[in-house]
């Protein structure tokens, strides 16, 4: 395995990777038996949701190289799609959860159309504009969405006769974990596939990739659409879990936090974004005592890591592993 690692850097054989992922998720699945208070479980559930959103963003931002700043809008669309479907249309919560993912996917395809001809900073501006547009639409339709007041008493998920509210968030923990698991497996399968390779090829050398017959239009639509589904599902789950929805999800502060998860974790790894989501969410909890200083410390941390370790936490791990191996050889 070691030789394999060195000959093709960054590529672990799929058997090893599957074993590692299975082990990691098995550990996570055992956590509720150790951590019994519902507040700590709540923190973990939020970490799972952020991990889904951040790792899916890594697909479009890191692998695709598409500066999609409307990613949080896809999350918000999931939140509101679930809320509207369960509240107004009376659709079954579980069906609404899946449908919300589909709605986000469609929204992602719609936003891809104007950015097909654009590059770099212009993509940031249009996708940013798209997010604001969605927020304005939600605000203006206050009869359905509650406008600035938000939506309250959104229907929760259900499990036969199990009481979801009085079990110390036991069931919610596993639903969130299952969404994260499904999303991670999906993302890793995608980026390891031929499609994933062609997405990276387009990012690294567009002219060459296009000349070799890769369709920019098709791959970009696939990238954005694929990154949207589980983001939308995570949004829907968030709505069901919190039981309310507000336009805060479109705000700059949440986008900054999730984006820093993607970049702190190191782009184009998927696992980096997930790891950074855990680290940042738990870090934010530890610093709860600092009150108003918390965002200041977080911002400083982000700047320092970006300046010192541009490749993020994944980069720190890689260089640590390299230096460890060097010491082994001596």
């Amino acid at each position: 395995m070691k030789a394999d690692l060195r000959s093709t850097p960054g590529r672990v054989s799929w058997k090893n990777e599957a074993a590692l992922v299975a082990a990691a998720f098995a550990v996570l699945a055992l956590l509720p038996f150790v951590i019994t208070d519902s507040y700590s479980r709540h923190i973990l559930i939020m970490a799972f949701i952020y991990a889904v959103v951040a790792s899916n963003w890594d697909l479009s931002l890191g692998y695709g190289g598409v500066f999609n700043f409307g990613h949080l809008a896809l999350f918000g669309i999931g939140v509101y799609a679930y809320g509207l479907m369960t509240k107004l249309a009376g659709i079954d919560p579980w069906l609404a959860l899946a449908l919300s993912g589909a709605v986000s996917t469609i929204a992602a395809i719609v936003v891809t159309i104007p950015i097909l001809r654009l590059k770099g900073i212009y993509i940031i501006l249009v996708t940013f504009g798209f997010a604001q547009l969605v927020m304005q639409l939600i605000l203006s339709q206050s009869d359905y969405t509650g406008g600035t007041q938000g939506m309250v008493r959104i229907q929760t998920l259900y499990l036969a006769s199990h009481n979801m509210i009085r079990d110390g968030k036991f069931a919610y923990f596993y639903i969130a974990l299952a969404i994260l698991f499904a999303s991670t497996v999906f993302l890793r399968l995608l980026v390891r596939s031929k499609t994933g390779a062609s997405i990276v090829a387009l990012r690294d050398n567009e002219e060459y990739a296009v000349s070799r017959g890769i369709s920019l239009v098709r791959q970009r639509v696939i990238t954005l659409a694929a990154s949207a589904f589980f983001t939308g599902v995570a949004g829907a789950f968030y709505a069901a879990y919190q039981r309310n929805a507000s336009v805060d999800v479109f705000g700059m502060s949440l986008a900054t936090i999730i984006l820093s998860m993607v970049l702190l974790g190191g782009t184009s790894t998927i696992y980096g974004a997930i790891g950074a989501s855990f680290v940042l969410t738990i870090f934010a909890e530890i610093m709860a005592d600092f009150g108003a200083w918390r965002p200041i410390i977080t911002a400083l941390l982000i700047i320092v890591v970006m300046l010192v370790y541009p490749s993020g936490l994944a980069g720190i791990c890689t260089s640590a592993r390299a230096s460890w191996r060097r010491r082994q050889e001596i």
Partner: protein
Amino acid sequence: MDAALQILFGGLFQGSLFAMMAVGLALIWTTIGVFNFSHGVMMMLGAYVAWQLSDWSLPLFIVLPATMLIMAGVGWLLQASVVRPLIGRPNIVLVVVITTLAAASLIENGVLEVWGPRSKQLPTLIEGNTQILGVGVSMHQIAIILITPVILGALWLFLNRTRLGLALRAVAQNEDASLLVGLNVTALYGLAFAIAAALAALAGIFMGGYRFMSPVMGADPLLKALIVVVFGGLSSISGPIFAAYLIGFFEAICSYYFGLYWTPALLFAVLILMLMIKPEGLFGAKTRGLA
């Protein structure tokens, strides 16, 4: 007549504020090729610095230049701390977005700590109200409408007629060649940020005079400035200025006929449409910019 005057007046007023913000963004983009997401926070900080200075009962003619000078220094510092170390990295556009966003969050929360959450208001530039053809307007707003073209004109003269300004434009056009002829490119980067921050501070003083100040007051002007630079094209200074007034009028017309609620949505719809048709901006030539 009344409606037309109100739209004309509102458009000029909003356009002045947008222009003041947007030229700073465009200046930084053309010289360094990065987008400064702390531009809105610079505006907010400028307003708070001015408030602090006038709270020490300094007169306005000292407060204005002093604030701009202090903020120019802050702009320079911002550039030196979160932008300059990243120059040369392959993904600089993206990384600068996150570092400037983080810096914005840092400054915003810092201001909240120092000056507290209570809303403040700056003194107006000129007190009183007046009537123009039957429409009541405040002297403060008239002052803004008149001062802005002077400042922007001065900036234009600086960029086109002085050695330093020409050096700044040279860096914007060709960085490697500028280095070859011996221009101090890093200093010019700092200068671009300093000018942008000073102009943002001035916009902040304008805004603090007719609206309550809060640590988040810069968010909306930043958003509008983003729209303006996309409209005007990022590759020049004059494009965003025209676009600023155009959008000022568009907003004035929209909010008059469709109401304040629909204006942002309409604005963004027009923006996205426009980018699909002419991505290099309304006044932009197909030069730098698109990459």
